């Protein structure tokens, strides 16, 4: 059971891990995908540090919950 | 990169003065070269001719007599001064100053004349020699003149030495009775240049209860070593108790005009002047009262 990265297809245990992977990689391809979903990659990163409670990563994780392909 | 130059070795004072006269602004004197060679490497100084007086034996001496006091030839190295028993006996403060002036290597090759002529406001000999009421003998081909060290330094790296002039010797009068001199510089790394330094000379009155004469000289606290004359005045005729010490050291730090640089802010340098002045006036006072 896991989630596939919509860009490089690596599989991750949960969407939080997947979000971590996407931010950590942070190349254009991953940025573009996030931005194409109506979020702003860089904004999310900055929100993450400016506001408490893991907000940036949670927001992306929620999106991935819906968007990312699940695999078993 | 060091630019090319003509190398001229002078073996006598006469040769040196003739060469200086001949080349005027187109030449530089090198002795120990501990500061000059660095400037030349950085291209900041590029003389056409370099006159080497390192072997000028005529100017390598340390003499003392009870009347005339101390005479140090310009090519005498810092290490020679540090190790001289004459100086140890009569001017111990000079030995302490030399010991902490720089690395052994620099003190071994660098000379007193070179150090003074370089005119670095952070140099160690300046303040101490001024507090000792020292002077220098300067000559060109025509004439000789003596200048109190207090008037020798003009600005950052600038002295009264004129074109074609050579610094011949340093002169220090005999230390009067009931007098003590103390010097200290503040630095983080030992033997580094001082962030500030203070030299204090105090003479007490005959029964040792009041201060009769005082000299307080600040190093690295202005464009040249400076006397804190206001502070000196507050001290004369008084006994430096805690209250006076506070006022004197406050005054001294007001009289300082230090720079702001990467090693310390102006504010911090003033605080250091205050701390050192307080400490050294106290020290000199206590020693002066003990001394015959």
């Amino acid at each position: 059971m896991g989630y596939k990265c919509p860009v490089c297809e690596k599989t991750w245990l949960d969407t939080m891990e997947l979000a971590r992977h996407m931010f950590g990689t942070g190349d254009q391809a991953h940025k573009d995908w996030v931005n194409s979903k109506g979020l702003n990659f860089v904004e999310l990163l900055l929100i993450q540090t400016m506001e408490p409670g893991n907000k940036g990563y949670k927001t992306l994780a929620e999106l991935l919950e819906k968007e990312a392909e699940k695999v078993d | 990169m060091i630019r090319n130059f003509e190398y001229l070795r002078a073996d006598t004072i006469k040769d040196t003065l003739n060469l200086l006269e001949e080349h005027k602004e187109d030449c530089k004197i090198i002795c120990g070269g501990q500061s000059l060679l660095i400037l030349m490497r950085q291209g900041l100084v590029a003389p056409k001719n370099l006159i080497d007086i390192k072997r000028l034996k005529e100017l390598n001496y340390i003499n003392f007599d009870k009347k005339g006091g101390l005479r140090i030839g310009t090519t005498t190295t810092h290490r020679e001064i540090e190790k001289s028993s004459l100086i140890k006996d009569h001017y111990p403060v000079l030995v302490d100053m030399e010991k902490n002036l720089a690395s052994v290597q620099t003190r071994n090759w660098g000379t007193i004349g070179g150090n003074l002529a370089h005119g670095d406001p952070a140099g160690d000999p300046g303040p101490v020699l001024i507090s000792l009421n020292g002077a220098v003998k300067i000559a060109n081909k025509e004439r000789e003149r003596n200048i109190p060290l207090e008037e020798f330094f003009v600005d950052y790296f600038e002295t009264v030495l004129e074109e074609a002039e050579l610094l011949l010797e340093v002169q220090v009068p005999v230390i009067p009775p009931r007098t003590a001199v103390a010097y200290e510089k503040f630095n983080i790394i030992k033997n580094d240049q001082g962030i500030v330094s203070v030299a204090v000379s105090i003479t007490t009155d005959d029964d040792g209860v009041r201060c009769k004469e005082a000299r307080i000289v600040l190093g690295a606290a202005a464009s040249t070593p400076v006397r804190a004359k206001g502070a000196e005045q507050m001290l004369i005729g008084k006994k430096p108790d805690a209250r006076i010490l506070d006022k004197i050291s406050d005054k001294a730090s007001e009289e300082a005009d230090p720079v702001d640089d990467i090693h310390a802010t102006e504010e911090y340098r003033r605080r250091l002047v205050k701390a050192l002045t307080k400490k050294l006036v106290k020290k000199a006072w206590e020693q002066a009262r003990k001394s015959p």
Partner: protein
Amino acid sequence: MEKQLVRIKVNSEYYELYIKPKKLLVEVLRDELGLTGTKRGCNTGACCACTVLLDGIAVKSCSVLAVQADGSEITTVEGLADRANLAPLQRSFLDHGAYQCGFCTSGMLMSATALLSEKLSPTKEDIRESIHGNLCRCTGYNSIIRAIAAVAEGKYKEQK
């Protein structure tokens, strides 16, 4: 600017060299005589990696013009050992691990040699003082101080 004749004795060999007056002693030792044991670590006379003995005293060979050394006797690190017999300081440095990258070692050894020729029984403070100018980024100095102290205490007699 013409080259000058310089006569120097280095590690008990005599040399006659024609060199530009602007050449520093360290450049002549390294480039003309191939004595690369003497290093250079800075351009401001602040690291003493280039320390050699000039007529028995420790100087920075980067802060002495070679022409100024004319007629003098110079000892570099290559001159410390007597053929295969290492000098006491060299043996003590080995025993105490008083070096790591080794780039400051020559200068350290020369400073220490000068100290021990001046003072028979230096204090710890004398030792610290004598290598104050010599920068080392590896050892933290204490092993070097121990090594010099051991020789000063007579633990290393000359091997003959």
